């Protein structure tokens, strides 16, 4: 008996063999029940696949595709050849990103340590205060508004009730 021809059964079924091979497979199937059974099973599998119903796309499928394409068309129009986006895409992007990350990771603590983030406190300008005090108290000598404002804000004393 000729050797089994299982590996050629699919090609035989699909008409993808040469004339001589077709004859060989036919002759073998005439005498080999096991190959004939396998051939029948492969045919049944193919029938099952061919009979599968057509899946219906969900409602609005084409519309969603349309919007995707619109967006894609807009994107390619926004980045014309030779434009800025095109040029930047040629630079070693990874290097640029790594540099940016390094600046963030190292820069923040360094800036913190060197006091870049510290609040800048202006030294108390006593001369300016007294000039301001004299100007305010000149016409209202008994209502010491300037003093009470200064004292309550800077030394956290309870605010003095002012009488008018």
């Amino acid at each position, binding site marked *: 008996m000729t050797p089994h021809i299982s590996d050629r059964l*699919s090609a035989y079924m*699909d008409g993808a063999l040469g004339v001589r091979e077709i004859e060989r497979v036919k002759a073998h199937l005439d005498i080999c029940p096991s190959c004939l059974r396998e*051939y029948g099973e492969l045919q049944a599998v193919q029938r099952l696949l061919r009979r*599968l119903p057509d*899946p219906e796309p969900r409602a609005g499928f084409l519309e969603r*595709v349309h919007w995707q394409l619109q967006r894609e068309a807009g994107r390619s129009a926004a980045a014309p050849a030779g434009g800025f986006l095109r040029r930047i895409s040629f630079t070693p992007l990874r290097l640029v990103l790594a540099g940016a990350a390094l600046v963030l990771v190292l820069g923040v603590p360094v800036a913190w340590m060197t006091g870049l983030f510290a609040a800048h406190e202006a030294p108390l300008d006593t001369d300016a205060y007294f000039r301001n005090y004299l100007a305010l108290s000149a016409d209202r000598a008994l209502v010491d508004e300037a003093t009470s404002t200064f004292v309550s804000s800077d030394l956290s004393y309870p605010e003095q009730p002012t009488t008018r």
Partner: protein
Amino acid sequence: MVEAVSALGSLEGVIPPTEGHGAEAGESAAHRLAAFEELVERHQRQIYRIAFRLTGNHDDAEDLAQEAIVEAFRAFDRYQPGTYFDRWLYRIMSRTHIDFVRRRNRRVVVSLDAPVGAEGDPLVTLLGDAREDPQQLTEAADLDGTVQAALDRLPHEFREAVVLADIEGLSYDEVAAALACPVGTVRSRLHRARQMLRDALRPQLGERGEER
């Protein structure tokens, strides 16, 4: 979209316009988009059918189909008018599908750490909670669902071969072109795929008429 296409008339076979300047460029881009969309509309059933049979569910089918269509649009200048648009798109979809499978495999690895399905069936965990979608539930109950589940379990190279050959009816040469592999590879993948399906679907094969 339909209005835009019909206003421009039938555009299949129109050579994709080259880049122009200003208003001309805008016009040619709109022309290109309209021509492409008409082709997609004409072939949407095949595109969606393949995407569905490759992925096994509507969510992934729509994602795969959309990704492939957008990829095809980016490459539309390389499409040769007058050749089969669907065959050209299958080639693109086959590449998109490989990325898709890689991404999904990563997702599956994550979901395996999650608690298993109600019956502790790993397949339920892998396929996600089909229970929530009544449409998927009925599909799983009938023959279509059984066959699809068997397709889902094939290695993706085998599944692609059998979907293109047996569901789409492509020749070996056409499948080889779509999958960018030799015809001999198509032949062996197809045969292995059918054997695996036969083993998985033995109860469903029913009566077998041997025709030679």
